[in-house]
């Protein structure tokens, strides 16, 4: 806090001929500056250590215990939780849900985001309005979007039911059928988060080297070739960045699932790893087991990120 109070006391001292303070004393003893730097960094570091790194380690420790969240003590039980998780058929369903949801969410939002960015990079009237519209849902809370879409998908009185009914199609029961419930959750996620990939791709398109494109056009390359051979390689860093951030973001989705399906229907219909952590820890009170699943999730994410970085590195060197 020293920074802000000190700074504000400095602020009012303006005026062209304000007496200059002591001459710069940059050589000699830097300890004053070290102390100040420590003061500036310490609050943030302490918070991150206590509330990010400590629980990360503690979570790992808890994963080897039978801790019940309501109980004061926990007993060391070795790899028991990991074995339980591995042999639990629900876990397989959860893994499958997580995989399907993540692959669809990442894939659809990246492909659609790029397509829309290319579309709205063209000179079209009214494109600014549509650009804003695509981005807008990204700022709305996941809980609000989830609840809104629960009603949009309502199999009896929802918007989709009415639209499809008008063209003679009966919508499936998005509430009761696990596969369709997962479609509902994924659609909601993509609708809310499409604006992010769209905006990032659009910025990349606007910042790229148009001369390459023009050269290719003059050379008579087809639209597809220009897209495939000129545009995509230029966008590779952006695609890489998005693949990591959208993956991390989609794996962590909690709010939409919590308001739309609570992980159901039929038990684990839309439960992903994150939601399984929540259910085991806070609904079933099995916090040790929840910590185990959280650890497994963290390790999976770490491995995937490392692979992504590797693949990307190789892609860069190939050029």
């Amino acid at each position, binding site marked *: 806090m020293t920074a802000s109070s000190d700074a504000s006391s400095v602020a009012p001292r303006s005026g062209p001929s304000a007496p200059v303070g002591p001459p710069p004393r940059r050589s000699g003893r830097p300890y004053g500056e070290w102390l100040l730097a420590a003061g*500036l960094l310490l609050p*943030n570091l302490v918070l991150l250590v206590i509330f990010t790194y400590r629980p990360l380690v503690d979570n790992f420790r808890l994963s080897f215990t039978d801790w019940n969240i309501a109980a004061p003590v926990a007993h060391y039980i070795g790899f028991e939780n990991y074995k339980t998780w591995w042999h639990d058929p629900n876990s397989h369903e959860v893994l499958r849900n997580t995989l399907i949801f993540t692959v669809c969410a990442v894939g659809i939002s990246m492909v659609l985001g790029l397509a829309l960015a290319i579309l709205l990079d063209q000179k079209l009237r009214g494109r600014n309005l549509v650009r804003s519209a695509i981005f807008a849902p990204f700022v709305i809370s996941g809980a609000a979007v989830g609840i*809104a879409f*629960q009603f949009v998908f309502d199999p009896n009185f929802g918007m989709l039911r009415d639209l499809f009914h008008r063209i003679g199609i009966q919508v499936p029961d998005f509430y009761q059928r696990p596969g369709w419930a997962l479609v509902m959750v994924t659609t909601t996620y993509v609708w809310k988060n499409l604006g992010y990939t769209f*905006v990032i791709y659009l910025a990349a398109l606007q*910042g790229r080297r148009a001369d390459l494109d023009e050269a290719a056009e003059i050379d008579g390359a087809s639209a597809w070739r220009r897209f495939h051979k000129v545009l995509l390689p230029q966008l590779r*860093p952006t695609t890489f960045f998005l693949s990591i951030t959208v993956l991390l973001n989609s794996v962590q989705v909690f709010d939409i699932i919590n308001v739309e399906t609570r992980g159901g229907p039929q038990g684990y219909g839309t439960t992903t790893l994150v939601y399984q952590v929540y259910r085991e820890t806070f609904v079933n009170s099995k916090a040790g087991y929840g910590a185990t699943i959280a650890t497994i999730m963290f390790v999976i994410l770490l491995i995937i990120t490392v692979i992504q970085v590797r693949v990307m590195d190789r892609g860069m060197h190939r050029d």
Partner: protein
Amino acid sequence: MTDTAAVTGFDSDEKPTGAHNAEAASFGGTGMKIAGYVGMVLVFLVVAGPLFWIVVTSVKERPDIYTQPAQWWPAHPTSDGYHSATTAIPFWDYFRNSVIITAILSIAKIVLGVMSAYALSLMRFPGRNLLFVVIIAALMVPNQITVISNYALVSQLGWRNTYQGIIIPLAGVAFGTFLMRNQFLSVPGEIIEAARLDGAGPLKLLWRVVLPMSWPTLIAFSIITVVNEWNEYLWPFLMSDDSRSGTLPIGLTHLQNNDGITNWGPVMAATVLAMLPVLIVFLALQRHMIKGLTAGAVKG
């Protein structure tokens, strides 16, 4: 590294003669143009349709909601939904909690982010790079992995259902530190040297020279922070049982638990009320937000 034409946001229509005129090499002629407009209209409908649908529902009378075929325009417009939404749950208590928590948390994060970024960019001390890595690596740790242990800690402190129980564990800043550090490093070295020669100490340098040159990035960082904290869900959800400290998304969840599916009117009304503030902020400030989001994503 981020200072490119890429981060101009949605304004490029207005300044077609900009330095980097990277206007799209178009992918076709008139036929494509028509297809482009058709695509634009479709996309707009897909985004706006659900929003229109919930707004219309929020002003319908209950029987008009539970009818087939659906009404796309309210036959008997009413504000009953809004009335029961704000009385079925202590809506304004949740709203107040959201405002207070978002305000305090955002200010804390912005101040901490600027402080850390300044120390990590323009001050010299041993271990600087290591500390930078320690702060940035926190980005790789998902909230969901830290909640179990943090929940136990905060419960022991007796901080459940309190503001500090929600605010303090969320106050550490990794992304903002990264964003602001990049910004501070882009301030030209000569300007900083000149200020130092004029006798400006580190804090004066920050307040009088570096920050004034960094407004656009600081504003972008601030808006993103405010929107993120306003929408924060998991941690406030675990920390709050009721309207003592619950934020708007939590209140919305409670309302939906009571009335969802059986009484959509008030639920949609509350959803509209929860969406409005952030959408208004968005419409006013979207350009700054986009700048912050794209900074760091696009290589310059």
